């Protein structure tokens, strides 16, 4: 459901109007999500032309405005250039500008900084955060980096092998995780601000061609009992805006990440 409409029932034609318009996405790898044979200007104006009824000079104006918004220096000259003339961080800024072209109401960012260096990652994350506040859009951040989750998001969904394990407000998730996978994941990630004993999640990620029966996490779970192998747990509400799919959430006491006061 998006704005009261069921997206799954829409035709491909209708979806094309939505994509890039009200719903936009930033991909992981800016080197392959931008077309190498078109200039940045062409790629930006294509999106604007497809969704908005504007004259050519207005389109150009809008493209410049977008590039200014994402902090690209000298946008008038630089937008005549091709993607290979930009660095990784700058390419990602162009990709962000393209996603924002039609002021989407919902923006997906799929690992937008995974390919960038840390100092550039900090620049891009700050930019995304500022834009979110400035443009008032909803934002879905897809990432494996617990640090980015902690800093940028209000609520979090934890996925494992195609199923939802846990949904919670981000601070709750870190202080009081209810699903064994969430807790194990938190304990397995090294932290910059302290040294800790890393807990291991045994085994590997399951093959999704033949996923484990019952709870998909049970072969790697410390708390699994017979029942977990047979029945699939459903999401249960365990607190305000906190849902978990685990049979044993009442019996087990999980430790969250140490959270500073």
């Amino acid at each position, binding site marked *: 459901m998006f704005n009261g409409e069921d997206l799954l029932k829409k035709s491909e034609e209708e979806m094309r109007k939505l994509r890039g318009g009200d719903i936009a996405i930033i991909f992981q790898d800016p080197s392959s999500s931008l077309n190498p044979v078109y200039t940045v200007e062409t790629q930006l104006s294509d999106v604007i032309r497809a969704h908005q009824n504007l004259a050519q000079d207005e389109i150009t104006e809008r493209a410049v405005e977008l590039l200014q918004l994402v902090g690209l220096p000298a946008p008038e000259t630089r937008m005549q250039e091709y993607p290979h003339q930009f660095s990784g961080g700058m390419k990602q800024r162009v990709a962000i500008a393209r996603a924002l072209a039609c002021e989407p109401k919902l923006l997906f960012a799929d690992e937008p900084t995974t390919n960038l260096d*840390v100092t550039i990652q900090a620049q891009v994350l700050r930019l995304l955060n500022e834009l979110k506040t400035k443009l008032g859009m909803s934002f879905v951040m897809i990432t494996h980096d617990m640090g980015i989750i*902690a800093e940028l998001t209000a609520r979090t969904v934890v996925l494992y092998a195609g199923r939802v394990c846990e949904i919670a407000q981000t601070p709750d998730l870190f202080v009081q995780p209810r699903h064994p996978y969430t807790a194990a994941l*938190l304990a397995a990630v090294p932290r*910059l601000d302290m040294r800790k004993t890393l807990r291991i999640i045994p085994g590997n990620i399951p093959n999704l061609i033949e996923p484990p029966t019952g709870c998909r996490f049970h072969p790697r779970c410390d708390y699994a009992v017979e029942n977990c192998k047979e029945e699939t747990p459903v999401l249960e509400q365990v607190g305000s805006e906190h849902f978990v799919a685990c049979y044993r959430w009442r019996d087990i006491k999980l430790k969250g990440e140490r959270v500073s006061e």
Partner: protein
Amino acid sequence: MSDALIHIRDLVKYFPVYSRGVLLKREIGVVHAVDHISFDIVKGETFGLVGESGCGKTTAARLILNLIEPTSGEVCFQGENVFEKFKLGSSEEKLRLRRKMQLIFQNPYGSLDPRMTIFDIVSEPFIIHKHVPKNEWKDRVYKLLSLVGLEEYHAERYPHEFSGGQRQRICIARALAVEPDFMIADEPVSSLDVSIRAQILNLLNDLQKNMGLSYLYISHDLSSVRQISNRVAVMYLGEILELADTDELFDKPIHPYTKALIQAVPIPDPKTKRLRLILPGEVPSPINPPEGCRFRPRCPYAKECKREEAPKLMDVGRGHMVACHIIHYD
């Protein structure tokens, strides 16, 4: 330091860049990949080398192992000059030295031959170094596999049957087959899944405790470097900017680049609110890098800094070395 296993002194590697031309090949610049770096690694310690991509971390590793020829500089391993040995030494001497130093690569998908079984991969060093009689190969391979947490029946399989984490274990078993004293791990967990990384980091730690290995751990991931290293050096454009004990470096960084690097990493704790120094711009090209201090174009204190020459790495106490004219202790 007398108990150092390996001394690295003024190591330099320049790669010339040529203009594209059919008839005339003209040198148009020099990539300063590694520029006068020096450090020691003590026996039994893990020395971390961090920096952003293209700062020369991997080039430094390959120079130390003499996989590429240095422009100048010296590496002493257990009192032997590595470069001289590889240039002038007999082939036995070279083999003996190679046996003591091993490398684990970043990508376990690319560093295992897909057409060899795990047994062949792990026993290949025995063919080269001839240090294990043939009738003991099987026992040795099994022992190595169990050391890295794999089972005996895995030996008959091929690399494609393993996951990334298991492949990295195979690479570690292969490196251990020659009983090395020193291992370079070049981004060993970067290509692995988050839930698997902890397994490999803990394995490296356990092996070090049991076998007294020394590591050079190369990574751009500061959190894992903090987890595993005893001392850390920060590289920027081919130079070391700061070098200190791990906790000292992460808790009391002095160089503005180190500070920015540390503050740039998001911490998995929603309640920490941190001041963040965000660096403007990007890492300049290492082809003909900035004169003087290489960090100057991005340095937030550049206006206060009046010195033209490049800063030298200086000890500010407790073995904490910094290359910066303006030293802030806050």
